[in-house]
């Protein structure tokens, strides 16, 4: 039987009894006469009279039960209004609901305030995240519990972190790199919101082979403030300083090599001058020999300084190159005429090969002369007697450039040295006694061709058979930009 039916029957019975007893209790009627009849009649009448009331109450209870069930099930159907209820139920309910309404107003106001706070904090967080994301350097942020809260793309890449799955994982679990983990743990353990630390550490990228050495990084870690806790977490930023180190090492190597190269001829000059002053070379022939050595070593010093200055000017981008229409065949003839006396001493023949076309490009005539001179001089230096040097000039339509090749029948370049011949101060150890050089000639050639003219230079060689240097100079400066791209 439904609970509603029970309510109906019991309320009818209670009301019937009340209707009978009430007048008697109030003394309105005298002692009951024929009580059985009267009781029966009154009960029936009262019961009938209470029926609508009981029905109303039952309906309200059923409605409220259904609504409660729907609400409990998460259904958001409209809740029946108080006015839809009967008057007796409505009175009590209205009072309860008014109180609830007041409470709800307070709660709503609180929620609105919280929502604004969350929105502000979300905004701050978004700004913070965007700023860290824009950093090219790896950055990670932890919360007050030492859990990863933010991993930018660079950090995910370097440390092999998953930007979703690793969030909320503790630093101890998620960070594999010992030094980074230690820095973050130290920051947290400091308990100070103003903790700052900087360290130089070696970090091996997650995708590097396990035996690869780590790259030098500068790590900066700082704790974050929090209004209620001692610290709100920490931020760690890494900066790759390996390249910086390399450059600074290259610079110091350059200075060291340059000083060695400068001191060597200076040493000879100093020693020979002192010998002359001390009268240790008395016969005129020895004296002449000494003066010749001093002159040639002073020239070597001058060439060395010129080359160093030219290279550093090009590297610093302060070389002003002229753009003139240069006829490459004429330029080659000029350079060959300068080298020819040297070649004749070793019975080396120099030949220029070209077609009948015009081979010209926009170039700096003096610099091009330097390139041809350096290549020809090397060819003659490292080619044994009776050898051949050939200069070939062609138009290369694919790259829109004049292609010049200087080939010799000389010693050739060992395979392990071929990648280094354009390096500063590089000299092939075994050839040091074959010929003198500054170790800067080919570096300058490469700078003039590639940096100044936007061209390209390559070398091929076979040991014992000879070497072939080929360089392209674009017809126009626009062409140079295309060649570079």
């Amino acid at each position: 039987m439904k609970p509603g039916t029970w309510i109906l029957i019991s309320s009818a019975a209670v009301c019937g009894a009340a209707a009978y007893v009430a007048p008697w209790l109030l003394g309105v009627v005298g002692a009951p006469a024929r009580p059985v009849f009267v009781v029966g009649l009154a009960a029936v009448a009262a019961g009938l009279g209470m029926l609508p009331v009981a029905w109303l109450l039952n309906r309200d209870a059923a409605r409220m039960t259904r609504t409660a069930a729907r609400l409990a099930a998460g259904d958001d159907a409209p809740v029946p209004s108080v006015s839809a209820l009967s008057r007796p139920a409505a009175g009590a309910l209205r009072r309860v609901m008014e109180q609830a309404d007041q409470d709800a107003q307070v709660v709503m106001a609180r929620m609105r305030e919280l929502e604004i706070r969350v929105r502000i904090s979300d905004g701050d967080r978004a700004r913070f995240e965007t700023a860290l994301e824009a950093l090219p350097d790896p950055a990670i942020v932890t919360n007050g519990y030492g859990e990863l809260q933010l991993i930018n793309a660079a950090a995910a890449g370097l440390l092999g972190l998953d930007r979703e799955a690793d969030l909320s994982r503790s630093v101890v679990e998620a960070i594999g790199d010992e030094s980074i983990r230690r820095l973050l743990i130290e920051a947290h353990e400091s308990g100070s919101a103003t903790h700052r630390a900087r360290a130089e550490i070696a970090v091996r990228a997650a995708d590097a082979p396990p035996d690869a050495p780590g790259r030098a990084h500068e790590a900066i870690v700082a704790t974050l403030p929090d209004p209620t806790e001692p610290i709100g977490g920490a931020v760690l930023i890494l900066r790759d300083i390996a390249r910086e180190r390399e450059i600074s090492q290259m610079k110091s190597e350059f200075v060291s090599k340059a000083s060695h190269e400068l001191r060597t001829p200076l040493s000879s000059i100093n020693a020979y001058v002192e010998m002359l002053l001390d009268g240790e070379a008395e016969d005129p022939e020895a004296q002449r020999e000494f003066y010749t050595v001093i002159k040639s070593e002073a020239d070597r010093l001058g060439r060395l300084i010129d080359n160093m200055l030219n290279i550093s000017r090009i590297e610093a981008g302060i070389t002003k190159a002229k753009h003139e229409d240069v006829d490459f065949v004429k330029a080659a003839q000029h350079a060959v005429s300068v080298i020819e006396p040297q070649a004749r001493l070793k019975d080396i023949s120099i030949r220029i090969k070209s077609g009948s076309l015009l081979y010209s490009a926009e170039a700096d005539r003096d610099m091009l002369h330097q390139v041809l001179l350096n290549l020809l001089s090397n060819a003659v230096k490292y080619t044994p007697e009776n050898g051949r040097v050939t200069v070939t000039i062609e138009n290369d339509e694919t790259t829109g450039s004049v292609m010049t090749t200087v080939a010799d029948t000389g010693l050739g370049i060992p395979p392990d040295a071929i990648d280094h011949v354009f390096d500063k101060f590089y000299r092939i150890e075994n050839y040091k006694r074959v010929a003198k050089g500054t170790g800067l000639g080919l570096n300058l050639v490469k700078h003039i061709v590639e940096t100044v003219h936007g061209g390209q230079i390559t070398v091929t060689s076979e040991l014992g058979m000879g070497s072939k240097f080929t360089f392209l100079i674009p017809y126009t400066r626009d062409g140079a930009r295309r060649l570079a791209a």
Partner: protein
Amino acid sequence: MTDTPATILVVDDEAHITRVVSLKLRNAGYTVLTAADGEEGLEAALQHTPDLIITDMQMPYLTGLEMARRLREHRATAGIPLIMLTARGFGLTPDDMAETNIKKMMSKPFGPRDLLRQVEVCLGGGEDEAAEAA
């Protein structure tokens, strides 16, 4: 010291330097041998056991320091004092000095007069050291 002039080996890949140093030493009465790199220097030292070696630091095949280390490995050459010429402007570490018999470092540019003075000092004390080592 006997009347026989001391023999000095000069090792440098710069021909001008070996030439001028040789001349200075010969003028001072020494017998001079020359070599153009560390390897040649080692061979000449083993073959002739000179009384003193003047060597350059930076040379092809074998550096002056490496040559000095190798000389220490042979009984005949272990006690030969060396004067090291260097253009790099760097000093040898105490370890380098301890494991070789380098007595003096001279940086380039150097004066032949100074060098001769150092040679005389080394040959004076060098013989005592060699006797101790033996």
